[in-house]
């Protein structure tokens, strides 16, 4: 599942590992993957809301 590797600061990795264990993640990899997915989804959402907003402004329904 985790075929690729990324480099991360050792101290940050220790903190992430501790946090992942405390939060109920089965591994630090699962925790990091979840964080990345959440962030990408948040950005996608913001981008899509921007497009909706632009359309509504064009139609004169938003100032």
């Amino acid at each position, binding site marked *: 599942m985790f075929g690729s590797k990324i480099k991360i600061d050792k101290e940050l990795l220790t903190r992430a590992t501790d946090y992942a264990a405390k939060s109920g993640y089965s591994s630090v990899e699962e925790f990091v993957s979840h964080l990345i997915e959440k962030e990408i989804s948040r950005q996608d*959402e913001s981008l*899509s*809301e921007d*497009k*909706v*907003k*632009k*359309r*509504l402004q*064009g*139609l*004169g*329904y*938003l*100032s």
Partner: protein
Amino acid sequence: MIKRLIQILSKKKPQNITIVSGLPRSGTSMMMKMLEAGGLPPLTDKLRTADDDNPKGYYEFERVKKLDQGDIAWLSEAQGKAVKVISALLTYLPPTYTYRVIFMHRAMPEILASQKKMLIRRQEDADDTRDEEMAGLYLKHLQRVDSWISGRPNIKRIDVNFNEILKNPQPYIKRINNFLDGILDTGKAEAVIDPRLYRQRES
């Protein structure tokens, strides 16, 4: 003591604000007109006048557009009235009031076709986003709004399908009237429905 009791009893009870919402071109103006004909006064400033896109008027109140900038003072005026608030601005309504939301739905291809015509008339870019993409964006947007509404105890909601109400208005108007505690003259509300305005039919 009696004086105090009279004061309490005579104090005006805060009234619901009726919100007509949905995506632009989903039949919100027609619903506003129905409510007005049925006896529920609209909050409108008539600044955006009737045109080819909305021959019977927009029923808008300009300050609604500033909800996202924190302009909420006008909401006290909206109590006991109907006001049009597009779905994208609903989430800016403060929890201070109680709202009855009539949420309009319409076949997405019709909404997009009607919006495109309107963008062209307004000399805006009508092709900046493909219809398939825009439909997906709107569906996501509506899911977010649904989720926001469902978490608000001060909001009651009814969903009305524009396509269906044109085909068979009576049961819908009955449901809307029940939702509004029976305040409407349903015959007058129904008389407003004008299928000639239904110009973006799905083929």
